[in-house]
């Protein structure tokens, strides 16, 4: 039996960051990861460190996380290739342009300073865009990082700070006796008064285990990368509507995505889908015609969880004391992962956080049938 103060299930960005922040405050924390850390949503996503376009209810969390991204190298002791290169969101119609203006006004209330780039300026600054692009909005402090490096770097730092990170520890049973959790993983028993549910799509099953089922769906982002091309694109790109996201790394490869991959019922295998790939390829060429002759060398996907209202489940359980949920990040968890871990550590240690979590309360799905 391994005793701890906090058990974390799931070694993605949120779980590893929570382990790090807790260990830094002297907490005995054990993280249980079924495979290798960062093997699912945190490791396979686009790598966008983006606040732009988020719902206002999500901005305080994104702001807090962005502050951590500024010192991610010092925090982890590793280079995660974080580059505040700017996120440029493109309008392909007058309605798109109006949407950019609407969000920019909302963002200003949260202290963000996105900047509109009009028709002439965008043509001048980005001559490689086609006429499809009529305007854009630039969030200068947004950017990108290497998704493959984040969770391993956080885990390494957490381990150095004293956390016990257990890879290849799939959880087989979960119990709560009223005061403590008892978890079986990889044939070993773990117990702690706190349990952090950071299990991504599989977090839904953990919530259900404690009487809080939520309508979570699996989400498989369809990702592609080209061979290296001459470097021309500094900003990470998005579009209004979200059906294309695209960036170029200094090595020259274009990483882009759009649409969904697929999986079998038990999610033993996930696969990118050619039809989704073709759609993303066509949209990429429509925006940047010079990509026509580029070659795609690899495609991939992985598994994230998606909630019907596009908000994650983040905060205290309504059924079980000591249980905190942090899952279902709807494809937007890479940027917020470091911040989510910090918030979880505050909830455990301080009993509160400054970040408003009301919109993410699990009660929005479970209260109606039970408490009301």
């Amino acid at each position, binding site marked *: 039996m391994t005793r701890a103060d906090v058990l974390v299930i799931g070694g993605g960005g949120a779980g590893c960051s929570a382990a790090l922040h807790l260990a830094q405050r002297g907490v005995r924390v054990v993280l249980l990861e079924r495979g*290798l850390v960062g093997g699912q949503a945190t*490791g396979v996503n686009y790598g966008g460190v983006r606040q732009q376009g988020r719902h206002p209810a999500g901005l305080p969390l994104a702001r807090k996380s962005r502050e951590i991204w500024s010192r991610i190298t010092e925090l982890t002791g590793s280079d995660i290739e974080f580059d505040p290169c700017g996120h440029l969101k493109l309008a392909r119609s007058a309605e798109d342009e109006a949407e950019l203006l609407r969000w920019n006004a909302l963002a200003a209330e949260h202290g963000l300073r996105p900047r509109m780039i009009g028709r002439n300026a965008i043509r001048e600054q980005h001559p490689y865009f086609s006429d499809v692009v009529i305007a854009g909005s630039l969030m200068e402090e947004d950017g990108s990082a290497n998704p*493959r*490096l984040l969770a*391993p770097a956080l885990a*390494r730092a957490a381990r150095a700070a004293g956390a016990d990170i257990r890879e290849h520890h799939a959880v087989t049973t979960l119990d709560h006796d009223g005061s403590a959790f008892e978890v079986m993983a990889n044939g070993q028993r773990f117990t702690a008064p706190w349990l952090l549910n950071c299990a991504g799509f599989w977090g839904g099953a953990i919530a259900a285990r404690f009487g809080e089922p939520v309508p979570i769906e699996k989400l498989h982002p369809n990702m592609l990368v*080209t*061979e290296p091309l001459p470097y021309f694109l500094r900003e990470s790109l998005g579009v209004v509507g979200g059906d294309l996201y695209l960036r170029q790394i200094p*090595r020259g490869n274009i990483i882009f995505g759009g649409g969904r991959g697929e999986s*079998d019922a038990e999610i033993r*295998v996930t*696969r*990118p889908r*050619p039809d989704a790939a*073709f759609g993303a*390829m*066509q949209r*990429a*060429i429509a925006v940047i015609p010079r*990509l*026509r*002759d*580029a*070659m*795609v*060398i*690899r*495609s*991939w996907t992985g598994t994230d969880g998606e909630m019907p209202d596009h908000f994650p489940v983040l905060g205290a359980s309504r059924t079980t004391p000591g249980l905190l949920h942090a899952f279902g990040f709807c494809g937007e968890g890479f940027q917020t992962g470091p911040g989510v871990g910090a918030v979880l550590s505050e909830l455990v240690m301080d009993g509160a956080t400054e970040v408003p979590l009301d919109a993410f309360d699990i009660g929005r799905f479970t209260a109606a049938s039970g408490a009301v």
Partner: protein
Amino acid sequence: MKVVVVGAGPAGIRAVEQLVRAGVFPTWIEEGPDGGGRITQRPPAEFSRSHAALYGADAGRAKRLHAALDSLKARVDWRPDTLVWNIRPDARVLHTLTNGAAQDEVSYDAVILCTGAMDRVLPLPGWTLPGATTLGGAQTALKSQGVGIGANPVLIGTGPLLWLTALQYAKAGAKPAAVLDTTDLLTKARFGGGMLWNIPTLLRGMGLYASLKLRGVKMYEDVTPLAIEGVDKVTAVHWRDAAWKEHVTPCDAVALGWGLKPEAQLADLAGVPFDYDDTQQNWVPRKDAAGRSPVAGVYLAGDGAGIGGVDVAELGGARAALALLADAKLPSDMALSKHLDGRLRTERRFRAALERAFPYPARLASRMEDSTSVCRCEVITAGELRAAAAAEAPELNRAKAFSRVGMGRCQGRLCGTPAAAVLARALAVEVPEVGRLRGQPPVKPVPLQQVG
């Protein structure tokens, strides 16, 4: 019943032959402009060199295979210049790219993957210099286009292909500067006995060796290659002999090759599990003796299903087709199946001895210097890979994530084998324990622009 055969080498030809014989007319997809495979690689139609000149002792086989290929093409849905770049095993669909531009989908009830093999390499300092290629590449240039990689090439590696390529170059008028074999004579002699399972092939191998000696080609055993030298192109090979003496052999080209590895990406994408074959030191897709994979509707034959050579490819292709027919409750030649099973058993014994007699020098690969480039697409050195191991990469895919090894154009087809050797030694584990690079579509690059 919709059957697709991927690949028109010896395995694909014999598979299609059996299908057609049973009245099943498949869609037959070949990546190259024509079929024939690698050992019996066909030159373009307008070339006039005879089979004897092109294939030497393989001329009879080449004639038979090419005749079968040509007669079968007309009877099936023949699709040359077509790359199968993805497979969706649940939907039973193949994604194809024709002439590098036109996308298409081909559905199937059953598919036979005869996807062949490629050279296995050992990265050396200078192996990316112009003038350095693989043994298979050097051979293909000669057979397909009638051009050599150089007038005085050095050939490095081990196995029958080393001698065969050297002899083909000598016969074509080149003067190989040296043939450097990394295997010692004792190892070859020790396992040579096992090759009595196929006496004609054993004799041919010995004949190759003798012919090279007769022609005065300098051959060395138990060699350690140290570097390929040159500034803008290959000018010499630096190597060490069995007595630990160093040599620099001037040359104008280099061909490298240590046996073959299966080109099994489609089997991987189809979800076929892989096992490490200790004898051939390769990851091999799982199949039964007849070529059935554990994935419904997917059959495997030829070197893509585990290196077996051209005899096994022909036998295995026919056998997989007969298994497919039997599984579909179509009439199939039971007597022939039984005969093929017996011959395949014998060939496997021969092959096991051959692989042991000419092993991949994983020892040399694992000890390469930190500055040597392992992954030529992404220019990742052995040192960077070892740094990934130090940063807690317990297996190859994690090392890829940390270091970018295998992330380039070839997707690890070339660097996968040596990278595994380097990583295993850095982690102080056996090579199979670091696993293999997971397949990801596309099998080979596809253009963004869609046509058709």
